C-alpha cells in the first residue's frame, strides 16, 4: 500500500510539474511583452511617427499568438488540485478559494474589455483611449498573477492563518499577513521582473534575427533599444528581489538554502559556490565530500543569508540531526514533536466523537503546543526532510549564471546601438538570438529551485506531499500525464510554428 501511494504521489507531482512548466512557457512572455507593447505605443502616441505604430502592431501580434496559445493552461493546475491533491485542496480552500475566483473573474472582464480595444480598436477609438487600453492590458495581466503567487508564497512560508481541527482546514486570520507576507511580496516581484527580463530577451532576440537577415533593420534597432533598456532595468530589479528572496529562504526554508548551495555541514563564514560539480553519492551524515570540484567565494553565503559574512549558516546535516551548539533544531527532533501533534489531533477527534469535552480540550492544548511541526510527524525518516540536492543546486546556479549574463547582453546592445553599429555586430546578434532560449532555461530553472527545493512539503513544515495527495489509482494519474504531455507539446509546436510564420512575414503582416 505504501509503495502504491508513493508511486501515485510521484506521478501526481510529475504531472503538476509538467503542466506548471509548460504553463510557465507562455505566461512570462505575456507578462513582459504587454509592458513592452505599452512602451512602444506610448512612443508612437508621443511622437506621432507611424513607424512606431507599425512596430507596436507587429509585437502585439506575437503577444496575441502567445496569449491565445497559453490561455487556460493554468486551469489544468486547478483541475489537478481537486483530483490529485484533494486533501491539500480542502485544507487551504478557505484561504485561497475566494481570492483566486475573484481574481479570475476580474482578469476575464478586464481582458475581455481592454484586449478587444487593443486588438480591434486601432481605427475605432481615440489614440489616447487605445493607449490607455494597452496599458490596462499590461497592468491587468500582471495583476492577475498576484494571488496565485501569493498562494505559492504562503505554501513556502505559511502566515496569517490558524488550523481548525474540527474542519480540518487552515482558516485565514489576517488577510494582510497572507497577502503582504515578505515571501509573497518577493515571489511576486521576483517572478514578474524575471518575466520582464524574458520578454526583453525575446524582443531583443527576434530583432537581432532581423539584423542578421538584414530585414526590417530600422524597426529592429528601435525595438532592441527599448527592450534592452527595459531588460537591463528588469535584470537589476530581478537581482535585487532575488537577493531578498534568498534572504527569506535562509530564514524560513533553511533546508532549501542548504540544498541550493550543497552545504551539508553548517559553518561560519560559509562560502558561496561559484562553480561546482556536486557529489551525487553524498548522503546526510556520511563522510563523503559534498563536491568533486568546487570554486568557493568565502563568506558570501553567510552574507547572503544573514547580511553578515562571519555568521553561521546551517547545513543539511545540522537541519536533519540538529546542532545544539548553534541552536538548530533538527528534523529528528521535529518528527517527535510532529508525531505528538498528530497523536493529539487523533485524541481530540476521538474525544469529540464520544462527547468528552475535558479530554478534547486537553488534547487540543497538546496539539496547539506541537502543531508547528505537524508535517514532520508524517515523515518516516529525518532524511526525508532533505530535497533532491543535485537538482536544486544545479538549477539555482544555472539561474544565477544566466541572470548575470543577461544584463551584460542588454548593456552591449545599448552600447552598440548608441554607437550606431548594432547591425554589424554579428556575434552579439547571434548571442541575443540564443538568449531567447537561455531566458526560458533561466525561468524554468528558477521554478525548479523554488519547487523542488521545498520538497517534501506541500505546505512548509505542516503538510508533506504524500499526505496532501489523494489516494487514487496510479493509472489515472499516468493516463492524464501523457494526455497533458501530448496536448501541451502540440500547443507549443503550434505556437512556435505560428510565431515563426509571423516573424518571417515581419511587421507588414
Amino acid at each position: 500500500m505504501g509503495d502504491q501511494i508513493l508511486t501515485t504521489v510521484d506521478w501526481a507531482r510529475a504531472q503538476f510539474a509538467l503542466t506548471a512548466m509548460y504553463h510557465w512557457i507562455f505566461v512570462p512572455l505575456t507578462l513582459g511583452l504587454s509592458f513592452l507593447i505599452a512602451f512602444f505605443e506610448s512612443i508612437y502616441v508621443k511622437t506621432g511617427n507611424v513607424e512606431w505604430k507599425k512596430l507596436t502592431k507587429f509585437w502585439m501580434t506575437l503577444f496575441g499568438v502567445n496569449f491565445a496559445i497559453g490561455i487556460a493552461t493554468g486551469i489544468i493546475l486547478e483541475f489537478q488540485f481537486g483530483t490529485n491533491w484533494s486533501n491539500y485542496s480542502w485544507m487551504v480552500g478557505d484561504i485561497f478559494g475566494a481570492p483566486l475566483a475573484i481574481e479570475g473573474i476580474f482578469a476575464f472582464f478586464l481582458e475581455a474589455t481592454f484586449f478587444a480595444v487593443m486588438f480591434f480598436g486601432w481605427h475605432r477609438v481615440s489614440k489616447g483611449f487605445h493607449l490607455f487600453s494597452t496599458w490596462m492590458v499590461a497592468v491587468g495581466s500582471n495583476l492577475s498573477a498576484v494571488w496565485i503567487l501569493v498562494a505559492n508564497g504562503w505554501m513556502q512560508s505559511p502566515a496569517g492563518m490558524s488550523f481548525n481541527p474540527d474542519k480540518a482546514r487552515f482558516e485565514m486570520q489576517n488577510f494582510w499577513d497572507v497577502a503582504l507576507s515578505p515571501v509573497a511580496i518577493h515571489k511576486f516581484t521576483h517572478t514578474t521582473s524575471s518575466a520582464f527580463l524574458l520578454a526583453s530577451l525575446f524582443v531583443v532576440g527576434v530583432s537581432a534575427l532581423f539584423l542578421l537577415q538584414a530585414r526590417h533593420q530600422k524597426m529592429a534597432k528601435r525595438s532592441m533599444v527599448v527592450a534592452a533598456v527595459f531588460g537591463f532595468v528588469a535584470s537589476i530589479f530581478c537581482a535585487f528581489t532575488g537577493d531578498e528572496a534568498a534572504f527569506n529562504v535562509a530564514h524560513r526554508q533553511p533546508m532549501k538554502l542548504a540544498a541550493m548551495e550543497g552545504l551539508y555541514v553548517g559553518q561560519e563564514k560559509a562560502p558561496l559556490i561559484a562553480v561546482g560539480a556536486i557529489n551525487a553519492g553524498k548522503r546526510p551524515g556520511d563522510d563523503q565530500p559534498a563536491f568533486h570540484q568546487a570554486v568557493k567565494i568565502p563568506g558570501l553565503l553567510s552574507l547572503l543569508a544573514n547580511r553578515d559574512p562571519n555568521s553561521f549558516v546551517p547545513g543539511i546535516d545540522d537541519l536533519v540531526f540538529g546542532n545544539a551548539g548553534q541552536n538548530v533544531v533538527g528534523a529528528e527532533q521535529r518528527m517527535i514533536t510532529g508525531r505528538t501533534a498528530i497523536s493529539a489531533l487523533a485524541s481530540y477527534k476521538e474525544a469529540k466523537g464520544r462527547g468528552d469535552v475535558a479530554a478534547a480540550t486537553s488534547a487540543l492544548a497538546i496539539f496547539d503546543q506541537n502543531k508547528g511541526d505537524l508535517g514532520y510527524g508524517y515523515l518516516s525518516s529525518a532524511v526525508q526532510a532533505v530535497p533532491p540536492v543535485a537538482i536544486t543546486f544545479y538549477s539555482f546556479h544555472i539561474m544565477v549564471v544566466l541572470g548575470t549574463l543577461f544584463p551584460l547582453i542588454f548593456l552591449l546592445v545599448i552600447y552598440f546601438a548608441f554607437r550606431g553599429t548594432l547591425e554589424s555586430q554579428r556575434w552579439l546578434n547571434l548571442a541575443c538570438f540564443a538568449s531567447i532560449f537561455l531566458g526560458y532555461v533561466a525561468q524554468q530553472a528558477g521554478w525548479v529551485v523554488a519547487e523542488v527545493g521545498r520538497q517534501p512539503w506541500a505546505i512548509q513544515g505542516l503538510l508533506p506531499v504524500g499526505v496532501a495527495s489523494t489516494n487514487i489509482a496510479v493509472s489515472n494519474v499516468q493516463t492524464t500525464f501523457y494526455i497533458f504531455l501530448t496536448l501541451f507539446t502540440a500547443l507549443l509546436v503550434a505556437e512556435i510554428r505560428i510565431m515563426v510564420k509571423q516573424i518571417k512575414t515581419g511587421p507588414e503582416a
Partner: protein
Amino acid sequence: MTSAARQLYLFYREGFRSMVIGRTLWKIIIIKLFILFAVLKFFFFPNYLKENFSTDRDRAGHVLENLTVSPPSR
C-alpha cells in the same frame, strides 16, 4: 437594441471579421477549451471530495481521518 449596445456589438463584430491570424488562434482556443472542459474535466478530473462525500462535514471528516491515521511512511 440601444445605440450604445449596438455600437458595442458592431465593434466586436467588425473586430472579429477583420481578424487574419486571429481566426486560426480562435480555432485553437476553442479546440483547446473543448478538450479541457468537455473531455479532461468531465472524464478525467472529478473533484474527489465532491464526488465521494455529500456534505462538508463528511469531507472534513475524511481529511481529518487522513491526517490522523496516515502511516509515517507517507
